[in-house]
């Protein structure tokens, strides 16, 4: 499988009045074409920082980002970003929110509208296109956010704990929606989560970060055939990965508290 995005020795530190904090201490890992990689690690290990560097919202202090063989600054405009907060613009209707990406990239609006309506139908939001976000439930809002991400046809989808604010049922459902969308549209996904269960169920590979400043501790290839959130959780291999990853994180907490 060919490498789509490679991070090479990425370092990043933040400084304020009280001194400098090294967050990323030379991260190196690859993301393949059509990969589904989860990044897990103890809180404060810089998961979100990695994302912001990839997305081009933050500049790394040193290191290279290599995208399909070319060194780039960041992937502005090429990535879709989904966070725990749905980040819908409250003053825009569902349809207008979905169309923000096409609007910014100056795509022909009539065509984008048609695509948007198709997506809204597919994800059970038909009839809500003129509703404002505050009228929708959390699960519906997160689906709108997913459509907004997909319609822009990003090369890589970055997910920063997108489902952690939802209840378990909604979450399982949306995980399924996501898996299906990723399969249908052949997307590469990078998921940041501190939910080990979610990481194992969804990913092809799991990158474990640890230490301070954080580094890649281990990369697990997840060998689970089932491609549905519930199916994956019932796979015989599931609990093995689950325990191994729990172990990885536990060691970190001990080191951290010492």
């Amino acid at each position, binding site marked *: 499988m060919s490498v789509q995005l490679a991070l090479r020795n990425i370092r990043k530190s933040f400084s304020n009045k009280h001194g400098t904090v090294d967050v990323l201490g030379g991260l190196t890992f690859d993301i393949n074409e059509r990969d589904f990689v989860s990044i897990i690690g103890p809180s404060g290990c810089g998961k979100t920082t990695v994302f912001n560097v990839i997305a081009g919202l933050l500049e790394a202090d040193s290191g290279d980002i290599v995208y399909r063989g070319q060194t780039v600054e960041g992937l502005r405009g090429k*990535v879709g970003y989904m966070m725990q907060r749905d980040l819908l613009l409250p*003053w825009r209707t569902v349809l207008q929110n979905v169309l923000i990406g096409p609007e910014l990239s100056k795509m022909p609006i009539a065509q984008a509208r048609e695509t948007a309506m198709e997506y809204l139908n597919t994800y059970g939001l038909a009839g809500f296109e003129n509703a404002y976000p*505050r009228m929708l439930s959390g699960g519906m809002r997160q689906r709108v956010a997913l459509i907004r991400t997909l319609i822009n046809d990003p090369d890589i989808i970055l997910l920063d704990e997108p489902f952690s604010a939802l209840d378990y049922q909604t979450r399982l459902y949306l995980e399924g929606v996501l898996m299906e969308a990723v399969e249908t549209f052949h997307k590469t996904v990078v998921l940041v989560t501190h939910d080990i269960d979610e990481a194992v169920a969804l990913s092809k590979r799991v990158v474990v970060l640890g230490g301070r400043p954080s580094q890649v501790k281990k990369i697990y290839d997840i060998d689970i055939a089932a491609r549905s959130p519930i199916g994956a959780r019932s796979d015989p291999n599931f609990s093995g990965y689950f325990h191994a990853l729990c172990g990885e994180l536990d060691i970190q907490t001990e080191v951290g508290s010492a």
Partner: protein
Amino acid sequence: MTQSVSIAQPAQKAQAKKWALDSGWGRSLLQLAAVVAFFAIWEGAARLGWVSNFLVGSPAKILDALVRDAHSGQLFTDTGYTLFEAILGFVFGTAVGSVCGLALWYSPFVARLIEPFIVAINSVPKIAFAPIVILWFGTGLISKVALAISLTAIVALIAAYEAAKDADPDLQALLVTLGANKNDVFTKVVVPSTLPYVISTFRINVGFGLVGAVVGEFISSEHGLGHMIFTASSLYDLNTVWEGLFVLMAIGFVLYFLIDLIERRLLPWRQASNANTLKV
């Protein structure tokens, strides 16, 4: 059985009573009753000699003054002047202030640079500018508008700047990942998220616009409600003073509701009720 009935009945009654008073008509009726009672007591007290007619005036005589000035047309001329000055001051001051405040979002450096100056200007009671403004702009309409602008612009500027500064950084970051440049972020996130705060300054600034107009008229003028009040008070004509005050109150009231209407128009997403929230 009997017990459950005796418990249920008073509860039901109380609820029915509360509903009747809390409904739109019930509230209006109570408010109207309060106004009528207030004027009735005032009028009665004046007629019975409990309060001095000379110092307090009386509603009937205020009404006489109102009819007199309406008949001569003086009331409408004065109201027109004040209203025109206040609205002009409000519109220009709020527009200029809001635009400047929003523009400061573009450069945190400039914003930090001029912040102490804004604080300094804001801490001067703007009314104290009035004599200078009259000297510069004369005794006509422009000086009142200028005074109203000086009052409203700074309020709008500070509110717009603070709100723009607080515009959700995550929303801005999201737009950047979607390929937005700084102008896109400004027009699609900063301006719409600042709009509710800008509109809420409209309410305050409508009042300040009137203050600017009336104070300007107090100091030097030939027309306007401020002129009418000032002249009448120097003649100890309390009823005409009250007439001017009540007309000013009515103007403020009407403008307030006009702003309310504008707000509903500009912010439809705020009206969207969450009563019909649907669960997945």
